[in-house]
């Protein structure tokens, strides 16, 4: 898929060079954006590609964050904490996949919403493990022997590396037969089943893999902030990811990248307007939905088509993926 490749490479180059010129706060925002990209890619897989409504993405994120934070308190290396978080998230993603097999769309929204509430309440009440409402502070950043990723710039590159891995693996999965099976389920579940697509297997995988990505993002989130508490994993957070994925463009590969960027950076850009920035942001969200309900990736398509028609006479009618 040549079309998709070079913009990603360009973005990667940008990602490598930007931190050299940004101040601490902007670097933090960029790091956070990368973490959110990872999370949004996960949700885009579950919801955008496979069409399964998941309103508990923040809960899967929490598994990653708390695994890293809790194990870090006991001196366990970061990568082990991340691995545990991902495994836990994957496992619970599978568990959530089962209701997806039984219930219709809107019930799935409610079940996942309920799961998010459950995880939040458990985090808040299981004080001996999670520190309850106070959460866990001073979450350690990764270190490889004497080399530590503690500095903001070093940790940024660490996050970037993981983001690259996530993007590459998601690309690999979605451009395989699995990707096609997911899309078939999203487009016409009944027909998909009748042509041999096992709804059970693919729905479970859609949930589990999406959750695993969320766990990865969560694991990176905790040391970025330096502390975590249950308040970071409420329904509001899941809704934030939902916004990223829909605003960016559901079921499109670039969607979560654009969406995470807009949802994270736009409020920052607007910050100058004093207090009004959240209002303008909210208005922008509403307007974006009214005028670009398929997501901002539509703008990207326009740019692409414009540049293509300017350089070559014929255009294909293939659907972008």
């Amino acid at each position, binding site marked *: 898929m040549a079309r998709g490749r070079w913009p990603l490479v360009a973005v990667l180059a940008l990602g490598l060079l930007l931190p050299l010129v940004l101040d601490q706060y902007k670097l933090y925002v960029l790091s956070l954006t990368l973490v959110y990209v990872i999370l949004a890619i996960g949700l885009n897989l579950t919801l955008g590609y496979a069409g399964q409504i998941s309103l508990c993405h923040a809960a899967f994120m929490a598994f990653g964050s708390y695994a890293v934070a809790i194990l870090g308190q006991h001196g366990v290396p970061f990568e082990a904490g991340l691995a545990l978080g991902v495994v836990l998230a994957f496992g619970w993603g599978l568990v959530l996949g089962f209701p997806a097999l039984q*219930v219709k769309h*809107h019930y799935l929204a*409610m079940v996942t919403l309920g799961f998010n509430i459950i995880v939040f309440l458990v985090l808040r*009440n299981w004080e001996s493990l999670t520190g309850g409402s106070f959460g866990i502070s001073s979450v350690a950043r990764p270190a490889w022997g004497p080399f530590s990723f503690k500095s903001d710039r070093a940790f940024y590159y660490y996050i970037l590396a993981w983001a690259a891995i996530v993007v590459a693996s998601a690309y690999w999965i979605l451009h395989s037969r699995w990707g096609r099976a997911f899309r078939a389920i999203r487009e016409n579940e009944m027909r998909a089943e009748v042509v041999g697509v096992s709804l059970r297997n693919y729905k479970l995988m859609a949930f589990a893999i999406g959750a695993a990505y969320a766990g990865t993002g969560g694991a990176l989130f905790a040391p970025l902030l330096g502390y975590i508490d249950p308040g970071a994993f409420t329904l509001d957070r899941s809704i934030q990811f939902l916004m990223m994925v829909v605003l960016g463009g559901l079921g499109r590969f670039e969607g979560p990248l654009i969406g995470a960027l807009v949802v994270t950076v736009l409020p920052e850009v607007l910050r100058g307007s004093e207090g009004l920035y959240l209002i303008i942001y909210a208005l922008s969200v509403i307007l974006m*939905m009214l005028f670009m309900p398929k997501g901002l990736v539509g703008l990207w398509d326009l740019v692409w088509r414009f540049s293509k028609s300017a350089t070559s006479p014929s255009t294909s009618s293939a659907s972008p993926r």
Partner: protein
Amino acid sequence: MGDFVQLTIAGVSIGAIYAMTAIGFVLLWQTSNTINFAQGEFVVLPAFAMVLFFVILRFPFVAAVLATVIVSTLLLGIGVKELLVTRLLKMGVLPLVIATIGLSLLIRYSLQQFWTPLALPFPAIFSREPIRLGTVIVSLEEIGNILFAAVVIGALQLFITRTKLGRAMQAVAQNRALASVLGINVGRLVTITFMLNAALTALAAILIAPVYLVKYDIGVSLGLKAFYAAIIGGFNQIRGALLGGLLVGVVETLSAAYISSHFRDAFALVILIAVLLLKPEGIWGVKEEWA
């Protein structure tokens, strides 16, 4: 024992307000497939309107109530429906969901920025003086809330089951395509449902203002409680939302009193897990064969 009864009544009292919010939420879902993430703010806005009319402009109480309900119905009923819902519903469920999220942020932060970030006090409508009923002490406010909510919900129930319009709403909720073919103007009906919801949330706001204090961010937890109520009570029946709302109120009040703050949410948690595992459509929800 008297304590328990008192607390339950207090729980039912606040639960009735949650129920009104949840019922509107469920009505919107049923007739138009709208998951209104701004439902909490649909209560906050009229609460502020009530402050404007009753406290600032000193309207007599009934006039203030009327004004609030009318403003809410116009803005949050007709306004939201015509400007957002009509256009977005054609695109499927999600774009509208995101738009309601944007709307909730818009209302919340506009109130904070253009009115006040502070909490505004609101005079009690019913007296808070305790009354003794046998061995139990309750306040007039609690009884007042319960009765008011009962009247409103009862009226709504009658409307839906006994009037032609109400039955048309039921038809649309069950099968839109069929209702349309039978000559029901679905678009107009959706507008009416939005207006009903706006009226319900306005009335809930009137009851909640004295209890919660009027602040720009109270919509967040209110909206969440409306979801929770709809999930456990039943998302596709009004009585489900009613049961859910009452349950939320009672569990919340009893938990606060009896369970130490460490495990306060345990009860709510257990109920939620039980419902999701055993009856995902909600306690009084109905399993749908074909969506």
